[in-house]
């Protein structure tokens, strides 16, 4: 059935290049290329990073951030019409009356729910709305780890400096301080809830570095870090009987006549009916935009990562920031075809794997910040023409994974990366014996809805936490800071929302006035389009089917 004869997963011509990688392996074992200077970093970014190369972005024409630059795919959604007709909905019949509505049940949303409950909000006055199941989130797929400066040679201040530099000093300082200072608190909290972090024999945490981090502070649970963190929190959440509704994405926020966030419209994806939630506070924790396939890149992201949160918040008048930057993870799978774009954690490189070109040569320090590392790989493939072309026409470089066992002892890879080993094995490749082919993949929304250190937005009653927020990572996030971001600002927004709802009344009237106003802004700006948002799900259906599809049920 296969198109090509494969030898242990690879066609013969790729095997030829693997031989060259094997040949230089011992020589490379203990030598690394130099780190780039700040000038060299700038140069490779400007020339090869998809964010810096012209043609992928344009200015937003309406709303709070009018004139700001964002990827075309994001602007398309900000300049789209609502999926509902505001005057067709009955907003007076309230289906769920709660104090706090949390949109999205990943690490941020689930942390927020537990902390709101800890801070005096009864379980039945909190509701998480999930688009798919509770726990369906990018958090679940986080492999590498969570940063927290807890070792004696480290400190939250050192962590802070790493984050600022990695983000090109565009981050919001007070938010970064909160992130780095709360990090050890978050890890301790998870441990006390029963999360199992990797340990050394003496009982201390086993910690590694990441690209752009100057100390070992990555806490991991093999390569299932996000999964372990989230399943523990979800179990705790379920033990407390906190309100939870699945397969019910929010398709629009509701505001009171003064513009305060006051509720939301849910849409049951099975029955297609809508439900009205009234809430005193709303925490948006919907994650990012990977499934928009910006610049046609493949993505590491969950199926539900469709930028719903920024669309909803922006219509309600929320301010965004750093919308111009997208994170491409340096090492997405480029082969085999079934797993293109999927994440190969940075922890592979912190454990000794090196990026290697078609000739078996090193070309970049393996642990530059992500944007720099990704640009260097693109340069090697398309600028220097030293990539390996796959049977489907993709180009990539090798990630020399067999080095991990050579460096750290036989069996290390299997023990530290069971998910990766398993995934490649399923598709015929043994990453313990052979290198794997990688190319940058769309990974993370660096910017988002602007927040302060407590998750507040510029809209009263509206909080954000996690990837949907903007400010903490500046123009580029470091490894191990996304799960951390979710934990820290999930917790903080939960605490703060609990405080807030104790002093406010429910909205007297629920409205969609902000949506009507947004639609008239679109019309005033003469934006004519059939595009509607939020899109909720990507669409990968075959073209032939779509050509013949007719809608008879409506």
């Amino acid at each position, binding site marked *: 059935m296969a198109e090509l004869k494969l030898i242990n997963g690879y066609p013969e011509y790729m095997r030829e290049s693997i031989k060259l990688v094997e040949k230089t392996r011992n020589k490379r074992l203990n030598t690394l290329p130099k780190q780039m200077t700040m000038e060299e970093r700038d140069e490779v970014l400007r020339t090869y990073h998809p964010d810096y190369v012209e043609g992928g972005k344009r200015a937003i024409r309406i709303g709070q951030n009018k004139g700001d630059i964002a990827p075309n795919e994001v602007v398309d959604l900000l300049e789209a019409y609502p999926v509902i007709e505001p005057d067709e909905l009955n907003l007076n019949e309230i289906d769920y009356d709660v104090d706090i509505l949390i949109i999205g049940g990943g690490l941020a949303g689930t942390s927020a729910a537990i902390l709101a409950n800890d801070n005096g909000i009864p379980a039945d006055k909190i509701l998480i709305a999930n688009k798919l199941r509770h726990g369906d989130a990018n958090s679940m797929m986080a492999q590498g780890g969570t940063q927290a400066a807890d070792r004696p040679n480290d400190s939250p201040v050192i962590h802070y400096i790493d984050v600022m530099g990695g983000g090109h000093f565009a981050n919001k300082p007070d938010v970064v301080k909160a992130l780095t200072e709360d990090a*050890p608190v978050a890890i301790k909290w998870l441990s006390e809830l029963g999360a199992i972090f990797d340990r050394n024999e003496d009982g201390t945490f086993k910690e590694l570095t990441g690209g752009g981090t100057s100390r070992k502070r990555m806490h991991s649970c093999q390569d299932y870090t996000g999964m372990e963190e989230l399943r523990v929190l979800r179990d705790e959440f379920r033990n407390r009987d906190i309100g939870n509704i699945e397969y019910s994405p929010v398709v629009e926020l509701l505001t009171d006549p003064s513009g305060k966030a006051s509720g939301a419209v849910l849409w049951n994806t099975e029955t297609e009916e809508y439900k009205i939630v009234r809430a005193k506070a709303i925490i948006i924790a919907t994650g990012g935009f990977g499934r928009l396939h910006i610049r046609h890149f493949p993505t590491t992201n969950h199926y539900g990562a469709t930028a719903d949160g920024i669309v909803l918040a922006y219509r309600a008048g929320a301010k965004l920031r750093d919308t111009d930057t997208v994170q491409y993870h340096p090492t997405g799978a480029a082969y085999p075809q079934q797993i293109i774009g999927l994440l190969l954690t940075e922890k592979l490189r912190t454990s000794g794997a090196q990026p290697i070109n078609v000739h078996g040569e090193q070309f970049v320090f393996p642990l530059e910040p992500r944007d720099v590392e990704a640009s260097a790989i693109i340069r090697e493939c398309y600028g220097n023409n030293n990539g390996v072309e796959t049977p489907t026409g993709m180009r990539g470089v090798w990630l020399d994974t067999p080095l991990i066992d050579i460096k750290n002892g036989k069996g290390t890879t299997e023990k530290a990366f069971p998910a990766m080993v398993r995934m490649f094995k399923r598709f015929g490749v043994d990453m313990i014996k052979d290198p794997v082919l990688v190319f940058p993949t769309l990974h993370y929304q660096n910017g988002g809805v602007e927040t302060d250190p407590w998750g507040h937005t510029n809209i009263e009653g509206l909080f954000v936490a996690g990837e949907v927020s903007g400010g903490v990572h500046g123009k580029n996030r470091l490894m191990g800071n996304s799960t951390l971001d979710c934990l820290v600002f999930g917790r903080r927004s939960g605490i703060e929302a609990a405080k807030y709802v104790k002093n406010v009344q429910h909205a007297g009237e629920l409205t969609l006035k902000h949506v009507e106003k947004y639609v008239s802004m679109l019309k005033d700006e003469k934006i004519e389009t059939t595009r509607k948002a939020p899109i909720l799900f990507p669409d990968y259906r075959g073209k032939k089917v779509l050509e013949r599809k007719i809608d008879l049920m409506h």
Partner: protein
Amino acid sequence: MEEKRRDLMEEIAEANSSASSGIDDKKIKHWIHIYVLGKQYKVPASLTIMQALEYAGYRFNKSVGCRAGFCGACSTMYRVEGDYKIKTALACQTMAEDGMYLVQIPFSPAVKAKYDINNEPYDGNVFLKYYPELARCVSCNTCTKTCPQDLQVMDYVQAAIKGDFQKVAEWSFDCIQCGLCAVRCPAEIVQYHAAQLGRRMYGKYGLSEEPNIVKRVEEIMSGKFEEEFKKVMSLQKDELEKVYVKQQNEREIY
């Protein structure tokens, strides 16, 4: 130069197109047939089950999640033409094969016990206290044969019956909670929930307190880093950049 670089992005987009913009039928040389609800669909060979179903015309609003083998949303049962055996898989992590009869299992109606982790004694009986049906295990090994992660599920069920937290935690650690074991179990055991209970108990009570984190949290609470934060946060951008570069040059690597 600008023009050339834009071409570069177009070139990359073209190379990546199979993963982002859909499959071009003209490039497909090999085809297979799969069956959904017994109906035959012709799809390209070398796709995952999930990609094949999408090609066939399905736009998922359930039975889909991370698409990378971490979330357990795409549990699938299937039989291959000519074989009587019912097999299980994750749709996103399994190649579609010619002659597959497929059905997605988006939900398993399993009960999760509620408990208070802070007030639960570290006692091996906790498994049977909350999941007494564990005792009904007949050691048929169906759970192990079902597990798409290839875990030794029956072994950790036996460890749970014996109250061995460490073994339950270690042997179940890679569980993605897809629920297929529970769906197939003739004794109606909910293996994955029992395992979750075991891992949390082991994580909280079976492991020693980590000394560094306890000390660091105390230091943070006492305000130890406030002064230093103030100093660093008052630096101008170029000064902070110098501190950053120095710190990067003195970094720990491996």
